[in-house]
């Protein structure tokens, strides 16, 4: 026993080093291997508060740009508003009101990152205002990410610029879909993979979110096709997509909650389970 204590005291420096190294490597590897198990993140009260303070100063530098964005979006909304009357008069086809399933909340990005392999954003709203894990985050131009964790007043978002966060995407006006991933290189582009070679597509086609996802509403714009590569080993396309969003400058975003998400997921889970019972 005495021997052990003497050994511990003698080597306390090395043991402390190994202990700390173990802790930090565990944190690092966990953060890379499975993105949900990040213990240390910026939605905690302390760092969240700091970032919202920093952001309140930074906001002043971008006011003009934000005003322009708001004016442009206002114009677009007004356009829809003014055009609506005509369409109602013209066509008697009942358009399914898709938005009634979705609740939209506005939030402010207080911390943004786009230089790493796994990028996260922090929002200045949290569970207190009804934000929950797995809600969709979009801006006025397109997809931003998915909410990862929430605290009372803050929420972290997995950015679309995350190498291990596939989204469902499809080519607009055709139902060929694939998954959106990021190769970790350029913050302006993402990749659409697993598109079958049967799909007809050309440069400049718009990529939108697919209907498979229970998080995002269908037809939220993501980007434009910039380059198309055919994979030699399989019959799939790999497509370079230029994002509509400038992920390096995000101000206000919209958080979308799908009210029927749970219903859809339980139904799908039950359907998949069923055959094993028989």
């Amino acid at each position: 026993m005495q021997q052990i204590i003497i050994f511990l005291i003698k080597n306390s420096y090395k043991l402390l080093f190994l202990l700390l190294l173990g802790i930090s490597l565990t944190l690092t590897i966990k953060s890379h291997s499975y993105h949900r198990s990040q213990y240390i993140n910026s939605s905690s009260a302390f760092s969240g508060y700091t970032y919202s303070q920093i952001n309140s100063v930074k906001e002043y530098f971008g006011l003009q740009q934000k005003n322009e964005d708001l004016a442009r979006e206002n114009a677009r909304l007004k356009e829809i508003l003014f055009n609506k009357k005509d369409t109602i008069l013209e066509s008697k086809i009942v358009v399914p009101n898709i938005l009634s399933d979705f609740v939209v909340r506005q939030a402010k990005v207080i911390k943004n990152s786009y230089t790493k392999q796994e990028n996260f954003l922090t929002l200045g709203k949290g569970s207190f205002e009804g934000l929950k894990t797995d809600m969709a985050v979009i801006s006025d131009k397109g997809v931003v990410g998915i909410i990862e964790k929430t605290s009372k007043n803050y929420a972290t978002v997995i950015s679309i610029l995350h190498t291990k966060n596939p989204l469902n995407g499809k080519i607009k006006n055709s139902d060929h879909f694939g998954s959106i991933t990021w190769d970790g290189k350029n913050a302006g582009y993402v990749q659409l993979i697993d598109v079958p070679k049967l799909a007809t597509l050309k440069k400049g086609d718009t990529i939108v979110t697919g209907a498979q996802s229970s998080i995002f509403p269908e037809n939220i714009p993501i980007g434009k096709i910039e380059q198309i590569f055919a994979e030699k080993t399989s019959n799939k396309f790999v497509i370079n997509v230029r994002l509509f969003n400038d992920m390096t400058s995000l101000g206000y975003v919209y958080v979308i909650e799908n009210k029927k998400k749970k219903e859809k997921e339980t139904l799908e889970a039950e359907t998949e389970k069923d055959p094993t019972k028989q």
Partner: protein
Amino acid sequence: MNSNFILNLIRFIVLLTIQIVVLEQVKLGGWINPYLYILFIILYPINSNKSGFIAASFCLGLLMDLFCDSGGVHATASLLLAYFRPFFLKFAFGLSYEYQTIRIADKLSVDRFTFIISAIVFHHFILFCLELYRFDLFFEIISRTILSTIFTFAICIISLYLIKPNKR
């Protein structure tokens, strides 16, 4: 000894604040980020308690991770730099390190430049290895290390000149 502790505590807080409030917002060319906070590890007094030193460096890195959402990347890099600092000191200063007569923040000489640069390269290389975490991006790791080292080094030297501690 006590005043030394307070000096280091102030340095810890000030460097961390500057790093998070100012330097994390600077993204030169989109992704080159200077990491001034490792100046704390570089400047820590040489003949002080070793365990306290690596624990403080670890805490500094962990706080950086808290603010950068980076898992334990900064903590690992800072801890390793703190642990291996004696080797860099020996490498840069040679004999005078053995007699414990050097002060890192003193006059800026070739020895000190060598020490600071080697420490920064070591730290940044580990940092970017763990952050990118993919071997197919090896050249990306190297280029980020080199470019960030240049900016960190420039900012370290500038701040050393600005806050040269009272000459003794």
